[in-house]
C-alpha cells in the first residue's frame, strides 16, 4: 500500500521511433498528463519495476517475441484488483495482421484498447483520460479492500479476545457463589439457596455461550489451508456418531450412514458440523418417539450434497434461514437447552469451505439439513 491512488498517473509511452514518442508526449502535455517515453522493453521493465504506472501506450510494432516476454515478466502475475489500461496503436492500412496471440497475451496483463492510425489528437487524449481514470479507481478499490479486510480482522480479534477474557471473571462468579452457598448459607435457608442456584445456572449458561462464541470466532483463523486434507466424509460422520452413542442408546435411537465420498477439507471442522447436526437431531427428537437419523449424499459433478435427516419435531420452514443466524433459537432454554450458535458455527465452517448449508422441515415431520462441499480429486 506504499502508493496512493494518485501516484499511478504516469503514462508510459513505448515507441521505437523517438520522434513519435516525443510527439505523443507533447499532445498529452496539452492535457497536463504526465508521460515518460521508452525506446525498448528493457526501459519499460525498469520503469514498471520502479513504481506503478497509470497506463501503457504502445505501438504495435514494439512487440517482438522477446519484448513481449520481458514485459510479461514484470506485469504478471498481477493482483486481482489491478487491470492496467493498455492502449495499442495499430496500423489499419498496413498488411500486417495483428497477431491473436499478442492480443491474448496483452489481455492477460491488462485491459486492451486498440487505436488505429491515423489517430485524431482528441481521440488519443480522451482514450488516455478514460484509462487513467479507470486506473485511479483500481487503486482506490485496492485501498478500500485493504481497509475492509483490516476492519474484518480487527473485529474477529475483538470477538475472540472478548469471549476469551470474559471467561476469567465469570469463573470467579461461579466459584465464589459456590463458596457462599455451600459454606455460608444456612442449609435451612431454602430461598437463599435457590437464589444461589439461579446465579450458578446463569453463569453456566454464559460460560457455554462464551465457549461457543470462541469456537465461532476460531473458525476463521483455524481454517488455514495447511489444515486441509483429503478426508473421508464417511469416516468423519461415523466418528461423530460414536460420540453420541450413549445418548442415542438411552433414547433407543438409530443412525444410518450411507456411502459418503472424500472431500478436501479441514477434517476437524467438518467433523464439528456432523457433531452439531447429529446433536440437534437427537435434541429435537419427538418426545415419545425414538430418533431415527439418516446421513446420506447426492453426488453432483464438482460437489457433493450431504444431508442429515431426522424424524424429530421439525420446525416451520419460515424459520429455515433464521436458525442459522447468531443466537437465534426457536425454543427457549427451559424447553431445549442450547446457545443458538451451533448452526451459525456450521454455516461459517461450510462457507469457509466454499460450500452452502440450508435446512428443510415441516413441524412434526422431521428436519433435513443439507450442506455442500467441493469433491476431492480421485
Amino acid at each position: 500500500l506504499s502508493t496512493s491512488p494518485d501516484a499511478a498517473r504516469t503514462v508510459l509511452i513505448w515507441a521505437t521511433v523517438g520522434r513519435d514518442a516525443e510527439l505523443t508526449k507533447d499532445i498529452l502535455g496539452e492535457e497536463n498528463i504526465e508521460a515518460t517515453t521508452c525506446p525498448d522493453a528493457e526501459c519499460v521493465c525498469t520503469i514498471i519495476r520502479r513504481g506503478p504506472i497509470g497506463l501503457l501506450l504502445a505501438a504495435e510494432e514494439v512487440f517482438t517475441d522477446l519484448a513481449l516476454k520481458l514485459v510479461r515478466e514484470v506485469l504478471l502475475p498481477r493482483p486481482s484488483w489491478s487491470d492496467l489500461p493498455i492502449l495499442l496503436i495499430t496500423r489499419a492500412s498496413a498488411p500486417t495482421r495483428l497477431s491473436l496471440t499478442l492480443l491474448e497475451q496483452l489481455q492477460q496483463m491488462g485491459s486492451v484498447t486498440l487505436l488505429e492510425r491515423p489517430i485524431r489528437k482528441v481521440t488519443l487524449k480522451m482514450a488516455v483520460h478514460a484509462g487513467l481514470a479507470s486506473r485511479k479507481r483500481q487503486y482506490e478499490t485496492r485501498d478500500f479492500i485493504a481497509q475492509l479486510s483490516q476492519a474484518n480482522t480487527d473485529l474477529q480479534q475483538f470477538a475472540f479476545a472478548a469471549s476469551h477474557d470474559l471467561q476469567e471473571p465469570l469463573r470467579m462468579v461461579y466459584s465464589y457463589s459456590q463458596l457462599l452457598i455451600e459454606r455460608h448459607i444456612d442449609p435451612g435457608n431454602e430461598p437463599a439457596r435457590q437464589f444461589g442456584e439461579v446465579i450458578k445456572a446463569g453463569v453456566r449458561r454464559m460460560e457455554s455461550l462464551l465457549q461457543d462464541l470462541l469456537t465461532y470466532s476460531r473458525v476463521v483463523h483455524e481454517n488455514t489451508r495447511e489444515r486441509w486434507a483429503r478426508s473421508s466424509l464417511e469416516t468423519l460422520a461415523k466418528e461423530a456418531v460414536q460420540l453420541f452413542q450413549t445418548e442415542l442408546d438411552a433414547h433407543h435411537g438409530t443412525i444410518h450412514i450411507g456411502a459418503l465420498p472424500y472431500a478436501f477439507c479441514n477434517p476437524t471442522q467438518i467433523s464439528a458440523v456432523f457433531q452439531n447436526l447429529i446433536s440437534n437431531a437427537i435434541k429435537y427428537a419427538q418426545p415419545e418417539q425414538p430418533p431415527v437419523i439418516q446421513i446420506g449424499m447426492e453426488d453432483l459433478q464438482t460437489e457433493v450434497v450431504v444431508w442429515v435427516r431426522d424424524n424429530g419435531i421439525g420446525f416451520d420452514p419460515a424459520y429455515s434461514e433464521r436458525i442459522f443466524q447468531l443466537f437465534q433459537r426457536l425454543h427457549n432454554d427451559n424447553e431445549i437447552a442450547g446457545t443458538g450458535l451451533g448452526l451459525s458455527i456450521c454455516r461459517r465452517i461450510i462457507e469457509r469451505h466454499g460450500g452452502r448449508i440450508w435446512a428443510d422441515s415441516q413441524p412434526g415431520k422431521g428436519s433435513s439439513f443439507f450442506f455442500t462441499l467441493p469433491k476431492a480429486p480421485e
Partner: protein
Amino acid sequence: MKRKLKVFLAEDNQSDVYLVKEALSLAGLACELAWEQNGEAAVKTLAKISHQDDVPDVVLIDLNLPKISGLDVLGIMRAQLLFANVPVVVLTSSDSPRDRAAVAERGAHYFRKPSDIHDFVRLGQIIKDLPSVADLIG
C-alpha cells in the same frame, strides 16, 4: 510429614490465591506459602535463592501474569540449574493446545482452573501426587 511443604505461587488474582490455599489445605498439605503477584516479582524472588535448601518444593505459576508471562517465568527457571528440576504446575483459565504444548515442553504440569470449586481443589491432590512431594510426605 517431616517438614512443611515450601510452595511458591506466582498469581495476580487474589481470589485464585484463596482457592489455591483452599486446595492445599483440603488436601491436608501443611504449607509455607510464598506468593508474588506478577512475573517480574516472581523472577526477582526466585533469583535471590542461592542455596538448594531454600528452593521451593513446588512452584505454581499462573500463565497470564502481569509484566513477565508465566511461560517466560517458567523458561527463566528452567535455564537455571537450581530450578531445572523443581516440579512446576502452570495454572490457567484458558485451554489452548498451544499453551499446553509450550508448558509440556518446559517440563511442567498444566492445570486448567475450573469454575467448580470441587474441581479446583483437586489441584491439592495433583500436588500431593507429585513424586518429590510424595517422598517428602513419606
